[in-house]
C-alpha cells in the first residue's frame, strides 16, 4: 500500500476516474492545484440539504478558508454550494476526530447509519426543514478497514473502501431513498479473479438499513446540485467538472518531474518531453501469456497505472456502492470509464521505451563503458544491473557544449539541447544498455576529460546505482588508429604460421645472420685501415701523391660502398609511407663521398680525408646493428618454433573483461597483460623486423640534414668560396648519421633478449615492446606465482581411515584440475607411493578463501582450510592446531572425503627469488599485479609479504 494523495484535475481525459463530482469547480492551473493531504486514502461523500444549497445560493456563505478560487461564471452557484459543503466537511471532520478520539470507530459506525449517494434524480425533492436537519458528521476512514491497494504489477483491485458518511438520523429525517422509478441495482458479484476486500462487512447491512421504504426520501448532494450542473445549452457541467482521482507514488513523482521539466523548459526556452514509462522501470509489462485477471472493460496497463479505477462492475472505489447505483447511471458510468481506459495510451513494454538521446561527448565516453549515446540505432536490451558487468545504467549526459575545464558550467550546459528544434527526453529512470568495447566511439582527444571531472562524479552521486569510476582509456590509444602491420622482409616468403614453416624460416634467419657476420668482418678491417690512414701522424708520414690526393681513404671508402650497396635503398624511406633503417647511413655515406670527392678534385692540397673513416665507422655500426637484429630474431624464433605448447603473452583490450579483472584495483583505464596457451605464435617476423623508435623519424631527420647542409654550405661558400661549398655540405650530411641512429633499436632489444632468454621467453623486437609496454596490469595464476617446487610438504597428519594412495591420487587430480599450487605436492606424494595414473576429476571448483572441491567418480573431495570443512559440515580438528601451524610460518591444508577429514598437510610456501625479483620490478614500474587465485592460503597479504610489495587498497 503506497502513499496516495488527492489531486484535482480539469482535464477529463487525464482523470482516471470520476469518483464523484464535487459541486464546485477547481482551479484550472494544474501546477497550483496539487494539494497533498497526507496519508488519507479514503475519499468521503458529503451531502447538503436543499435549504443549505438555497441558502448558499442566496449569497450567505462563509468565507472560504483557502481564499478565492478562480472559477467559471456559470458555476458560481455551484461554487457556493461547494464552499458550504467544504465548510461542513471540515467541521464534521473536526467533530469526528474528536469523537473518534473518545470512542472507537466501530461504535460510531454502529450508532450512525451511513448515507450513501444515489444516482441523480430527475425531480427535485422537498428540502427538509433546516431545524430538523441534523449536523452531518463525517467519519474519517479507519485505516484498519481500508483494503490494501494493489501493488503496481498486480491487477487493480478495489483501492479504497467506501467512505462512510454517517449522519445521526432523527426519526423523521430519512437518510436516503432510492429513486422510485429506477429499479434497484442488483447486487453484482465481484469478479472471481479480483478478490474483493474483506473489509466493511457492515456496509451492506447499513445499506439495507438506509433503504427503508418508510423513510422519507432525501436527496443527495448530487441530486441537489443537478440543476446547477446544467448550463443554458443543456450541457451538463459534469463532463468538464473537475475530477478527483487517487494517485500512486509513481504518479506523484511523475507529476513532480513534469513540473520540474516545465520549469526547466521555461527557464531555458526549450521543449521537454517527459517519458512516463521510463520512470517506472520496475513495472514490467504484462506478458500476454501470463495469467491475467478477467477484466474486459479495461486494459491491464491502464489499470496498473490507475489502481483506483472502476472495476468491471462499475464500482468507483469510493462511496458508491454498486447495489445503490442505478442501472442506467452505472451503465453510463461504466461506459465513461471504459472510454477513458481505451483512450489512455497503453503502457509500453521495456523494449518499446525510447532511448534517451544525447550528444556524444567526452564525458559520455568517460561515463564508462556504460553509455553509447551516439548509437541510437543500436538495439537496447533492458537488463538487470547484476546480469552482466558490461550492463550499466545510463545516466544523463552532457552535450557538446561541455568542454573540459568548464566544471562550473556543466550543470547548466548538460541540459542544453544541441538543437533546439529537437525535443529532449528527460527521464529519471535508469535504462540498461549493453556496451561493447568495439562499438564505443573514439573519444576526441581535445575533449577528453581532465583528471577530476565534476560532472561525471555528480551524476554518479545522483544515481542510486552509481558504479565506480568507469575505466578510461589512455588518450593516445584512443585517438591513434591501429598502425598497419609492418611489411615482411623480402628474404621471407611468408610469416611463420605453423611448425612446418620453421625450417625454411630458420634457414633464412641463419643465412641473414651469417651474411651480417661476413659483411661485418671486412667492414671492420677497412674501417680500421681508414682510421689509421687518416690519423695525422700516419698521413704526415705518407709522401707523394698518396698523401696529396688522399687516394687511399677514398679508395677504401669506395670499396666499403661496394660492399654495402643495399645501403642506398635507405633513400626509399624519403618516400611517403616507406620506412628504412638505412636512411641515416645512406645520408652519411653520401655526405662522405661528396666531401671526399670534392676534396680530391677541388682542393688536392688539403685533401686530408677525415670523413671517409667516419663513414666507414658508420657502416660498421650499421653492420653491428644488423648482426644484433639477426641474432635476436634467430634466438627468439628458436623459442617459438617448437611443436610444444607455449604461452602467448599479450594485452587484453576487451573493456568488460579488463574491468572485471581489475575491479577496484586500478583507478583508471586498464590494459591487462595476460598469457594464453597456444601452439603457434603468429606475426612473429613482422614484429621482429618492424622499424625501431628512431626509424619512424628518419625521414624528418634526413630532411633536416639536407636543409642544414644547404645552409651550412652557403655559409662556408660565403667564407671560403665555391670550393668550400661541397665539402661543407658533405660534412653536414655526415654529421647526421652518428652510430646512435643505428643502435637505437638494436641494442636495447638485444639486451632484453639476452635476459628473457634465461627465462625461456622472447620479445619480438621494438614494436612488440611498444605493445607490451602499454599495459598497466598483469594477470598471473597462483600456480605461476608458486610454480612446481615452491610448496613443500613439512608434515602430514592422518585424521581418517580413508587415506590411501588412491585418495592422494584423487586429491592430485582435483588439484590439477583447477591448477592449484598444491598439484605438484600431491603429484610428488603419489609418485613416491604409487605409480598409477591420475584419475579424472570433474566439477572442480574453487570456493573463495575456502579451498577446492571436486568429484572423482562417486567421491567428493575437499582440499582447503578449516572453514571449507565447516562450510560443508565436516568436523575438523581443534583450531589450536591451526594456530600452531600458522605461528610457525606454515599453512594447514585439510584433505577431506567421504564426509570426514582424512588428512592434515602442513605445507610451506617458498617464493622463488626470480619471481620475487621480477614482481618487485614490475610493481616498481607501476604495473598492478592481478592474481587468479585458487588457493585459500594465498592471500593478498601473503603475496605481498612474500614478494615485498604493498597491496592495493
Amino acid at each position: 500500500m503506497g502513499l496516495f494523495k488527492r489531486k484535482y484535475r480539469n482535464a477529463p481525459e487525464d482523470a482516471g476516474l470520476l469518483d464523484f463530482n464535487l459541486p464546485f469547480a477547481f482551479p484550472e492551473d494544474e501546477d497550483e492545484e496539487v494539494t497533498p493531504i497526507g496519508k488519507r486514502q479514503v475519499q468521503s461523500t458529503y451531502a447538503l440539504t436543499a435549504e443549505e444549497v438555497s441558502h448558499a445560493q442566496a449569497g450567505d456563505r462563509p468565507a472560504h478558508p483557502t481564499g478565492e478560487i478562480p472559477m467559471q461564471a456559470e458555476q458560481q452557484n455551484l461554487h457556493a454550494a461547494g464552499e458550504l459543503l467544504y465548510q461542513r466537511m471540515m467541521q464534521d471532520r473536526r467533530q469526528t476526530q474528536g469523537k473518534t478520539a473518545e470512542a472507537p470507530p466501530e461504535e460510531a459506525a454502529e450508532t450512525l447509519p451511513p448515507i450513501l449517494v444515489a444516482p441523480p434524480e430527475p425531480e427535485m425533492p422537498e428540502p427538509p426543514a433546516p431545524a430538523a436537519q441534523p449536523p452531518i458528521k463525517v467519519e474519517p476512514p479507519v485505516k484498519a478497514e481500508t483494503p490494501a491497494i494493489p501493488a503496481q504489477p498486480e491487477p487493480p483491485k478495489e483501492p479504497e473502501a467506501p467512505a462512510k458518511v454517517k449522519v445521526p438520523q432523527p426519526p423523521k429525517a430519512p437518510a436516503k431513498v432510492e429513486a422510485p422509478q429506477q429499479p434497484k441495482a442488483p447486487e453484482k458479484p465481484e469478479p472471481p479473479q479480483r478478490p474483493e476486500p474483506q473489509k466493511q462487512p457492515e456496509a451492506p447491512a447499513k445499506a439495507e438499513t438506509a433503504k427503508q421504504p418508510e423513510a422519507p426520501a432525501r436527496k443527495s448532494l448530487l441530486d441537489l446540485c443537478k440543476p446547477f450542473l446544467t448550463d443554458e445549452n443543456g450541457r451538463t457541467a459534469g463532463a468538464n467538472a473537475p475530477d478527483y482521482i487517487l494517485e500512486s507514488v509513481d504518479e506523484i513523482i511523475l507529476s513532480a518531474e513534469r513540473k520540474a521539466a516545465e520549469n526547466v523548459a521555461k527557464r531555458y526556452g526549450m521543449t521537454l518531453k517527459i517519458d512516463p514509462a521510463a520512470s517506472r522501470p520496475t513495472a514490467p509489462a504484462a506478458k500476454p501469456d501470463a495469467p491475467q485477471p478477467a477484466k474486459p472493460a479495461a486494459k491491464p496497463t491502464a489499470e496498473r497505472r490507475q489502481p483506483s479505477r472502476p472495476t468491471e462492475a462499475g464500482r468507483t472505489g469510493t462511496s458508491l456502492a454498486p447495489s445503490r447505483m442505478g442501472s442506467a447511471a452505472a451503465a453510463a458510468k461504466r461506459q465513461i470509464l471504459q472510454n477513458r481506459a481505451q483512450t489512455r495510451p497503453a503502457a509500453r513494454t521495456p523494449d518499446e521505451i525510447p532511448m534517451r538521446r544525447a550528444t556524444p561527448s567526452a564525458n559520455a565516453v568517460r561515463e564508462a563503458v556504460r553509455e553509447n549515446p551516439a548509437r541510437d540505432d543500436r538495439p537496447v536490451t533492458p537488463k538487470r544491473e547484476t546480469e552482466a558487468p558490461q550492463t550499466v545504467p545510463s545516466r544523463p549526459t552532457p552535450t557538446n557544449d561541455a568542454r573540459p575545464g568548464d566544471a562550473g558550467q556543466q550543470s547548466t550546459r548538460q541540459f542544453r539541447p544541441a538543437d533546439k528544434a529537437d525535443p529532449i527526453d528527460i527521464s529519471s529512470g535508469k535504462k540498461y544498455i549493453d556496451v561493447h568495447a568495439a562499438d564505443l566511439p573514439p573519444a576526441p582527444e581535445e575533449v577528453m576529460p581532465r583528471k577530476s571531472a565534476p560532472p561525471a562524479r555528480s551524476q554518479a552521486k545522483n544515481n542510486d546505482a552509481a558504479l565506480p569510476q568507469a575505466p578510461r582509456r589512455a588518450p593516445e590509444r584512443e585517438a591513434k588508429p591501429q598502425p598497419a602491420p609492418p611489411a615482411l622482409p623480402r628474404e621471407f616468403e611468408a610469416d611463420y604460421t605453423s611448425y612446418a614453416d620453421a625450417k625454411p624460416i630458420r634457414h633464412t634467419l641463419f643465412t641473414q645472420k651469417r651474411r651480417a657476420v661476413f659483411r661485418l668482418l671486412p667492414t671492420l678491417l677497412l674501417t680500421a685501415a681508414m682510421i689509421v690512414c687518416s690519423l695525422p701522424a700516419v698521413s704526415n708520414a705518407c709522401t707523394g701523391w698518396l698523401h696529396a690526393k688522399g687516394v687511399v681513404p677514398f679508395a677504401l671508402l669506395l670499396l666499403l660502398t661496394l660492399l654495402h650497396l643495399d645501403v642506398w635503398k635507405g633513400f626509399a624511406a624519403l618516400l611517403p609511407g616507406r620506412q628504412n633503417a638505412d636512411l641515416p647511413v645512406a645520408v652519411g655515406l653520401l655526405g662522405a663521398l661528396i666531401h671526399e670527392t670534392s676534396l680530391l678534385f677541388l682542393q688536392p692540397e688539403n685533401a686530408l680525408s677525415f670523413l671517409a673513416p667516419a663513414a666507414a665507422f658508420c657502416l660498421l655500426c650499421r653492420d653491428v646493428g644488423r648482426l644484433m637484429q639477426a641474432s635476436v630474431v634467430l634466438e627468439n624464433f628458436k623459442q617459438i618454433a617448437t611443436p610444444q605448447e607455449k604461452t602467448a603473452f599479450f594485452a587484453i583490450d576487451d573493456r568488460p573483461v579488463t574491468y572485471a579483472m581489475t575491479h577496484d584495483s586500478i583507478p583508471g583505464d586498464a590494459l591487462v597483460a595476460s598469457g594464453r596457451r597456444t601452439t603457434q605464435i603468429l606475426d612473429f617476423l613482422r614484429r621482429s623486423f618492424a622499424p625501431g623508435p628512431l626509424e619512424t623519424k628518419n625521414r624528418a631527420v634526413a630532411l633536416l640534414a639536407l636543409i642544414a647542409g644547404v645552409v651550412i654550405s652557403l655559409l662556408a661558400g660565403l667564407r671560403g668560396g665555391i670550393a668550400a661549398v661541397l665539402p661543407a655540405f658533405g660534412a653536414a650530411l655526415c654529421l647526421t648519421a652518428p652510430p646512435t641512429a643505428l643502435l637505437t633499436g638494436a641494442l636495447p632489444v638485444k639486451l632484453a633478449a639476452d635476459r628473457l632468454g634465461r627465462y625461456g621467453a622472447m620479445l619480438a623486437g621494438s614494436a612488440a615492446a611498444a605493445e607490451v609496454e602499454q599495459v598497466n596490469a598483469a594477470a598471473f595464476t597462483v600456480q605461476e606465482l608458486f610454480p612446481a617446487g615452491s610448496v613443500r610438504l613439512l608434515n602430514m597428519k592422518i585424521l581418517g581411515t580413508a587415506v590411501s594412495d588412491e585418495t592422494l591420487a584423487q586429491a592430485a587430480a582435483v588439484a590439477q584440475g583447477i591448477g592449484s599450487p598444491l598439484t605438484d605436492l600431491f603429484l610428488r606424494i603419489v609418485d613416491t607411493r604409487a605409480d598409477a595414473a591420475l584419475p579424472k576429476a570433474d566439477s572442480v571448483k574453487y570456493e573463495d578463501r575456502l579451498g577446492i572441491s571436486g568429484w572423482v567418480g562417486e567421491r567428493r573431495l575437499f582440499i582447503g582450510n578449516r572453514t571449507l570443512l565447516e562450510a560443508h559440515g565436516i568436523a575438523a580438528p581443534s583450531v589450536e592446531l591451526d594456530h600452531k601451524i600458522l605461528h610457525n610460518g606454515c599453512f594447514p591444508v585439510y584433505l577431506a572425503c567421504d564426509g570426514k577429514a582424512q588428512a592434515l598437510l602442513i605445507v610451506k610456501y617458498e617464493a622463488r627469488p626470480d619471481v620475487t625479483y621480477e614482481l618487485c620490478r614490475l610493481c616498481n614500474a607501476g604495473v598492478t599485479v592481478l592474481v587468479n587465485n585458487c588457493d585459500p592460503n594465498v592471500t593478498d597479504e601473503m603475496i605481498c609479504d612474500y614478494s615485498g610489495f604493498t597491496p592495493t587498497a
Partner: protein
Amino acid sequence: MNSAASDMHLQATRPVEQLSAPAAYQSGSAAAPAAIINAAIRVRRAGAVMTALHIVCLCLALALYAYLCFSGIPLTLPMLGGYWLVALLIACLVPCLNRP
C-alpha cells in the same frame, strides 16, 4: 580478481591453435611474463631516450659545424671523432644503465 573475472581470465587463457602475440614464454613461472613486461618497459624507455638524445646531439652538431664554417675554422677529424664518440657512449650507456 573475483570469480567472474577469474572465469573470464580462464576463458581468455584457454589454449588456442594460433595466436598473434608480441611475446611468448614457455616456463610456468611468473618470472617470465613479469620479465617480459619489465623488458618491454625498459626497451621502450631506452629507445625513447636514445632517440631524443640523438636528435639533440644532431642539432647541436649541426649548429656547431655551422658556427665553425662561419668562423672559418675547418672541421677536423678529432672534432668529428669526439662528437661521434660522445654519441656512441650515450647510445651504449642508456640501455646499459636502464638494463632490461
